[in-house]
């Protein structure tokens, strides 16, 4: 087990190093002069030169990479071109709305998807099954921003059940905080629910065909415990894997959802950086989000031993 964890940590370091190289090379392999593009069409040569110095573009490539990677490793993600604030500070300021949104989404999406998937597999071919398939197909096809505006239009503008947009910090007013998160979490969670419900249904169908399920039924185990303890637990590994892989979906969705609902989170930070071409911010957020994704998937892999004692590393 310890050897396995060590090996996985080593490969995590390799992957993150490669992510770093890719992100670094993006800036340098982009066609044209990135400093001129970032500065915009009306920039003076002095402004362009200023940005070039700020991004360290005036040195040799290996030296630039060395300098950049040592500062990233020591936790310094650079300084925003426009506000002159360290990127880590900017990300830190925006962390609460994003974390709130992510946790709210996970808290509703995972249970809903599991229930949908288990019911669909238990009554395969029934109307529950077909309804869950419709949710799944819509979830994959409907773009988050269209779903978001539809929800705002129906539940906020027309019915006035929820606020249209915006965010209240957790520390200020918990009820308001929750009211502002309902629609964004539903929007962000739809595709995630679709993904997890589909894999749950598929693996449950396989497990339910096993002999030990027939045995459990024969000796009179009630339906609930049969589905949850006997079947779902054994279907756990692929489901947890997809929950981990699906985090990529959530990360992309956070950027869009925060824009639709005007939440001042990390996703919004990137979107605001696009029009100003504030590259250090974009680069910093990519590194942070990639690291989150890689770490979550490592945790997911290690959690296999908890749900399935047969798996030993």
């Amino acid at each position, binding site marked *: 087990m310890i050897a396995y964890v060590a090996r996985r940590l080593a*490969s995590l370091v*390799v*992957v*993150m190093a*490669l*992510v770093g*190289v*890719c*992100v670094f090379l*993006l*800036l340098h392999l*982009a*066609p*044209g002069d*990135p400093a001129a*593009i*970032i500065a915009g069409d009306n920039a003076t040569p002095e402004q362009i030169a200023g940005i070039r110095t700020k991004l360290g573009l005036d040195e040799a490539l290996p030296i630039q990479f060395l300098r950049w990677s040592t500062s990233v490793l020591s936790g310094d993600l650079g300084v925003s071109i426009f506000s002159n604030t360290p990127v880590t500070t900017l990300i830190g300021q925006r962390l609460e709305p994003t974390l709130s949104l992510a946790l709210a989404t996970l808290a509703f999406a995972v249970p809903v998807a599991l229930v949908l998937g288990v019911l669909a597999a238990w009554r395969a071919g029934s109307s529950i099954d077909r309804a869950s398939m419709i949710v799944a*197909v*819509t979830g*994959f*096809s*409907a*773009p*988050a*921003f*269209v779903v978001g*505006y*539809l929800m*705002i*239009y129906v539940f906020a*503008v027309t019915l006035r059940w929820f606020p249209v947009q915006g965010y209240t910090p957790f520390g200020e007013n918990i009820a308001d905080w929750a009211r502002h998160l309902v629609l964004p979490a539903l929007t962000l969670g739809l595709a995630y629910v679709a993904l997890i419900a*589909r894999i749950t249904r*598929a693996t449950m169908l*396989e497990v339910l065909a096993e002999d030990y399920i027939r045995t459990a039924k024969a000796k009179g185990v009630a339906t609930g415990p049969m589905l949850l303890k006997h079947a779902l637990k054994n279907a756990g590994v692929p489901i947890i894997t997809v929950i981990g892989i699906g985090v*990529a979906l959530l*990360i*992309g969705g956070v*950027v*869009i959802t925060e*824009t639709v609902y005007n939440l001042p989170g990390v996703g919004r930070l*990137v*979107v605001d*950086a*696009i*029009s100003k*071409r504030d*590259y250090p911010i*974009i*680069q910093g*957020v*990519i590194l942070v*989000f*990639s690291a989150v*994704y*890689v770490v979550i998937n490592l945790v997911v892999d290690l959690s296999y031993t908890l749900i399935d004692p047969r798996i030993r590393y």
Partner: protein
Amino acid sequence: MSEASAFSARELAATASVGPSRRHFVRRHPSLVAGAAILAIFVALALAAPYLPGDPLTMTPARRLSPPGSGFLLGTDALGRDVLARTIHGARVSLLVGFSVAAFSVLVGLAIGLFAGSIRKADAPLMRLMDALMAIPAILLAIALVSLTRASVTTVVIAITIPEVPRVVRLVRSVVLGVREQPFVEAAIAGGARLPKIILRHILPSTIPPLIVQATYICASAILVEASLSFLGAGSPPEIPSWGNMIASSRLYLARAPWTIFAPGIALALVVLAVNLVGDGLRDRLDPRLARRM
């Protein structure tokens, strides 16, 4: 008159002879047929867009935000532009990006995947690189690329293709690893065939059916990502009427003029749904092993 009736009679005879089997096909592959039909309508509209009445760029400020029906079938947007004409023209960008990304990512991914799967030394480093590319959220990678270059549809296609490539590589590689141990490949090696010939003649054909399925899913996801990027302001240049651009520029008018958002929004969801349905249908036909699992 007589010519017309002769033609329709011939047509009738033709339909009668293939009728039962065609109906059988529709019944066996409902999602494939439904998806292909919706997609065909959008492709036809996209191709015909320049010849249809209604201009996507003409502004009629006096009639801005007119509701659907009043002279404009789907109303007008905040600048008084015809929403229907813009939605039809938007299909051009979406389909162009979807099809190009699918084609490029399959070609590049196929080449890298065949290489990684057949040359053992290249396998591990290439796959770690692919892991790294997969760890970068696709939308953020695209945002970074677009913010470093001038906005154009080409940039958007490249930016969406890069994160899709690793998925193709992994698929191709897994097929190659499976086929490599098959007796017919071993026979080819024993027969003295050279590596390039083995790859092209014996391994490549097995990768085609799953790749076709994968390509349709990539097309659907590329259409979604392009719209998302345009919506965020990092996609097609704002003067191009793409669905994402239309929604982005109508954000402030959601309560007053919901049609400006939902016309392109529904078109987008329909196209993505259609491509996904085609993918599901093709998967059921070409890859029954996968079909049973999902």
